[in-house]
């Protein structure tokens, strides 16, 4: 039986260690992993716990991330509670198997310390890997700080393993800015954490020899569409389950989470929509602008990226006048993902607030509070003019000449 750790009421943990501690408390059966910066300390910390006798499960060292996720798929199909961690190129190498995991309806938890994708090689944080996974059929949950990395890991097992869902879950955190930044974290005790997550009850597990099943079968045009449609429905139907898991988590932790986190939006004229640690920095900028310049600024951060909270994000945004959608991934010849998805959501409202797109922070480029304030001021100008006064997509924090695309046609 694994030893327990007597945690303090307040620990100072970085996001990686918070993830490793939550994984330890979840009493996982199998972790198959191939470490990569900046998620390495998650796997390292977990392996340390195992070596020190705090974990009963198996730790499988593999030869690549493709093998790591394949090992997770095998162990999950066999009927085990399974998790791993990765970043960037490792995530990219896992992609083929990510689709296998979701298609086979295997509740694996994958911690992703978000990092840029090469080339050029870069180890620092942006959301390229997170965006790469957004059509993979996984639930994607985003943590804005180390506390939330811990909390969302505990919730991720509950969501993915729910018998109405049975889907794999990613828990995202910003590489370095969250993964390597130590902050105050209030963990649950080992007993309370495990009690919240609960014992894993597998379904259709391969090791149930009394009831043989097939995993990973071939379906052509006869059944493939029905399988994928059911998978999509399970993901869409995860929305109320995620809400109920968050509600139960609030009962044990006192910390309240929603599918879309909103700050100061009740009277907000201008709102920034962002992901990761930027949500918190934007809250600080919004508060300062309210105090210093009287700009009614608010912030909206999707806690859950998939299933995309089309309903909840529309509720949060429909009454403001101008929205800045901030994407931390090179959009590759399109408008950014958040811009596209937020625009689609608010297009179905009566007031249709103005939406513009800001590309920022690629490869770990710092986003300063003054940069965020400048965005809010542009949004305020849009709100006052009743039309978009800048180009629709702008790169900010970029060296060299201004890079921006597309003019509004409003008023023409």
């Amino acid at each position: 039986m694994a030893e327990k750790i007597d945690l303090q009421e307040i620990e100072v943990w970085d996001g990686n260690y918070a993830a490793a501690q939550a994984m330890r408390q979840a009493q996982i059966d199998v972790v198959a992993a191939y470490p990569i910066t900046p998620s390495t300390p998650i796997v390292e910390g977990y392996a340390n716990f195992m070596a020190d006798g705090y974990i009963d499960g198996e730790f499988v060292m593999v030869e690549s991330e493709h093998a790591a996720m394949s090992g997770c798929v095998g162990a999950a199909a066999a009927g085990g509670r399974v998790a791993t961690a990765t970043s960037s190129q490792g995530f990219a190498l896992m992609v083929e198997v990510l689709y296998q995991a979701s298609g086979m309806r295997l509740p694996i938890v994958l911690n992703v310390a978000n990092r840029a994708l090469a080339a050029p090689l870069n180890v620092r944080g942006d959301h390229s890997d997170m965006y790469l996974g957004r059509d993979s059929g996984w639930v994607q949950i985003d943590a804005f700080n180390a506390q939330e990395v811990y909390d969302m890991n505990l919730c991720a097992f509950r969501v993915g393993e729910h018998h109405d869902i049975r889907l794999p879950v990613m828990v995202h955190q910003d590489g370095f800015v969250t993964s390597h930044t130590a902050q105050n974290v209030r963990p649950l005790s080992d007993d309370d954490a495990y009690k919240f997550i609960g014992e894993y009850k597998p379904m259709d597990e391969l090791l149930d020899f009394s009831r043989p099943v097939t995993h990973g079968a071939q379906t052509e045009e006869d059944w493939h569409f029905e399988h994928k449609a059911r998978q999509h429905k399970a993901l869409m139907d995860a929305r109320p389950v995620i809400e109920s898991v968050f509600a139960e988590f609030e009962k044990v932790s006192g910390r309240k989470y929603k599918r879309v986190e909103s700050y100061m939006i009740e009277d907000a004229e201008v709102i920034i929509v962002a992901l990761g640690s930027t949500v918190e920095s934007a809250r600080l900028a919004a508060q300062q602008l309210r105090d210093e310049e009287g700009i009614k600024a608010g912030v909206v951060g999707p806690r859950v990226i998939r299933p995309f909270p089309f309903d909840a994000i529309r509720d949060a945004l429909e009454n403001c006048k101008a929205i800045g959608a901030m994407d931390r991934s090179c959009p590759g010849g399109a408008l950014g993902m958040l811009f596209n998805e937020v625009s689609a959501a608010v297009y179905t409202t009566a007031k249709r607030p103005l939406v513009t797109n800001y590309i920022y922070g690629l490869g770990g480029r710092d986003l300063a509070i003054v940069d965020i304030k400048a965005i809010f001021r542009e949004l305020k100008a849009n709100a006052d003019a009743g039309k978009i006064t800048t180009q629709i997509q702008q790169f900010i924090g970029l060296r060299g000449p201004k890079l921006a695309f597309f003019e509004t046609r409003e008023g023409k």
Partner: protein
Amino acid sequence: MVEIRWHSRAGQGAVTGAKGLGDVVSTTGKQVQAFALYGSAKRGAAMQAYNRIDDEQIINHEKFMLPDFVLVIDPALAFTDNITDNDKSTTKYIVTTHLSKDELVAQIPALQDKKDRVFVLDCMQISLDTIGRAVPNAPMLGAFVKISGMFELDYFLDRMKKVLSKFPQKIIDSNMQAITRAYNEVK
């Protein structure tokens, strides 16, 4: 909000120092943040680590800061890094050096109008004498406790012992000596 910037070389323990400081500060009921700018930096490369300390939850994640304290734990970096970058009229500098304060300031033009805010000690010699290796982070913490006045020395030592509790007693004792000596020697 108190903001601290550490100038260090990768391997000298600035990250450990910043996190150790964070651990101790968290026990006083304050919120902390400890982070570093490194990543694929090789041992010996110049790097910076940072602390933020506040009464409220810290939601600022920009790397940019206007430091209240600049802690230089490698003697050469006082000369080669821009240690006065983004400073304020109140920023205090604690620099590890074998030189006297006058000798140091005479050689660094950027410090010449800030002399009353510059404090020096020889973290390298102190750590060699006490810990037996050149690990300047522990002495710098002792100097910071003295100059910042943020803690009583005994309180800090007591908390630091808990942070280091996974290490052998000999290492804990030598770190306590290093912190105490630095506290008394910084000027």
